[in-house]
């Protein structure tokens, strides 16, 4: 286990020095720029409408609605970027690196395969968490500055987005034991897409009051807990809204998010441990 910090240090250095990091940085700046532009437009539209029609019989808080919808969108974007980073950092860890010959000089050192995998996971989870939290804070600053809007909960959703990327990193590491880097990348994004589709299904189910759709979505989001974490975080940013504002929010594209309850965190951590254990077992038996 003395090797874990060494592997983490090596992996951190690698993630900062590879070109992927530069690509992600550029994409992030583009994303934040677009988001600021969109937020500005949205709030300007709200201001002009608020000026035009003074009466608002239902008492829907337009500013809340706009802020929550834009911030919901930013959380979706942040999770997506975090997932891309998590996948790129881990998709070739075992088979990909073995095929390229990068793994051979490392596995013969007296640190053990499990140390290598645990260190790799810890580094990827750390990089992705820091990245996701920074982007989250960036979008928070943008909605606050432009629209004077802040989410009802700030810390919880950030931690959940970070945990969601850690789940994706764990799944990607598991996949890397069996699949080549390209195949694993495709698989990880298909799983990520499946989670998102399940979440959207749940929202449609909520809008249609379809119990069955909601159940399917709930099972899927527990099977792929990055989705449950994201949904719960999305739900928390408008935790304090009520009345018609809440109804109006629930009809929006990011409004039907479900709170996951107290079991979410223990399950997410257990899930990462379980996926990690599977990856360790498979890697220990793998003939390189």
């Amino acid at each position, binding site marked *: 286990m003395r090797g874990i910090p*060494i592997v983490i240090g090596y992996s951190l250095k690698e993630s900062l020095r590879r070109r992927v990091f530069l690509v992600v940085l550029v994409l992030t700046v583009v994303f934040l720029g677009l988001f600021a532009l969109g937020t500005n437009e949205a709030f300007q539209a709200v201001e002009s409408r608020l000026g035009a029609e003074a009466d608002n019989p239902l008492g829907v808080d337009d500013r809340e609605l706009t802020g929550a919808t834009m911030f919901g969108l930013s959380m979706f974007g942040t999770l997506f970027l975090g997932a891309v980073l998590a996948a790129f950092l881990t998709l070739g860890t075992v088979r990909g690196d073995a095929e390229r*010959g*990068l793994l051979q*000089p490392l596995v*013969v050192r007296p640190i053990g395969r499990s140390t290598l995998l645990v260190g790799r996971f810890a580094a990827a989870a750390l990089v992705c968490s820091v990245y996701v939290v920074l982007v989250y804070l960036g979008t928070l600053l943008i909605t606050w500055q432009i629209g004077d809007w802040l989410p009802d909960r700030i810390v919880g959703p950030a931690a959940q987005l970070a945990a969601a990327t850690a789940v994706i990193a764990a799944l990607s590491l598991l996949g890397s034991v069996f699949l080549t880097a390209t195949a694993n990348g495709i698989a990880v994004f298909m799983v990520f897409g499946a989670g998102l589709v399940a979440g959207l299904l749940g929202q449609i189910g909520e809008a249609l009051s379809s119990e069955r759709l909601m159940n399917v979505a709930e099972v899927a989001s527990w099977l792929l807990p990055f989705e449950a974490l994201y949904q719960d975080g999305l739900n928390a940013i408008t935790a304090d809204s009520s009345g018609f504002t809440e109804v109006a929010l629930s009809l929006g594209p990011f409004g039907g998010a479900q709170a996951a309850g107290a079991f979410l965190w223990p399950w997410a951590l257990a899930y990462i441990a379980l996926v990690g254990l599977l990856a360790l077992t498979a890697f220990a038996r793998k003939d390189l």
Partner: protein
Amino acid sequence: MGYLAELFRFPGWASADELLHLHQRLAGSRGGESERTELLQLVGLTEARSRRVETMSKGMQQRLGLAQALVGTPRFLFLDEPTSALDPGGRRTVRGLLEELRHRGVAVLLNSHLLSEIELVCDRVAILSRGVIVAEGRPEDLARPRGVEVDVDGGTRLYEGAGRQEVPRIVADLVAAGAQVFGVRVLETTLEEIYLEAVGDQAG
């Protein structure tokens, strides 16, 4: 123990020095900077110390691989085709390096198909065929006399099956018979011939 795989690559973003430093930590070596300096010097990469791996030629990477395998002064070194990517100059460097290691008392297990290289550096040879040792011994013991070739005024004469011991008699006979002898060569089987004989038809 040190090991260099036949198929290996180092991360392109790392410099030679960083890479050795990483392996020092992984191997638990306390050699520090002086060990890295010495290893880079040993494989002729002193100038490339802060060069990134991706800017190095295959031969330089191979030599860096050897330096990496030597981190922590292993008593036993396992090298799998260490000269396969090298040009003749690089091969000579590696050969010199292996001789230096032998001098230091490091046991080296060299796995190679370059039999002429093996003939030059190895103390003992084992030929494997399908996981079974089919021939083993010192190269000079494995080699068998194949004949003696003598250049005389009439051309070259071959005495098949003759060995070194018979050379004086052959030359004396020729001179007694009035021939002029210009040169004598003792022919021995090469490792390649021994290999082909030992592995036989299984070689593919």
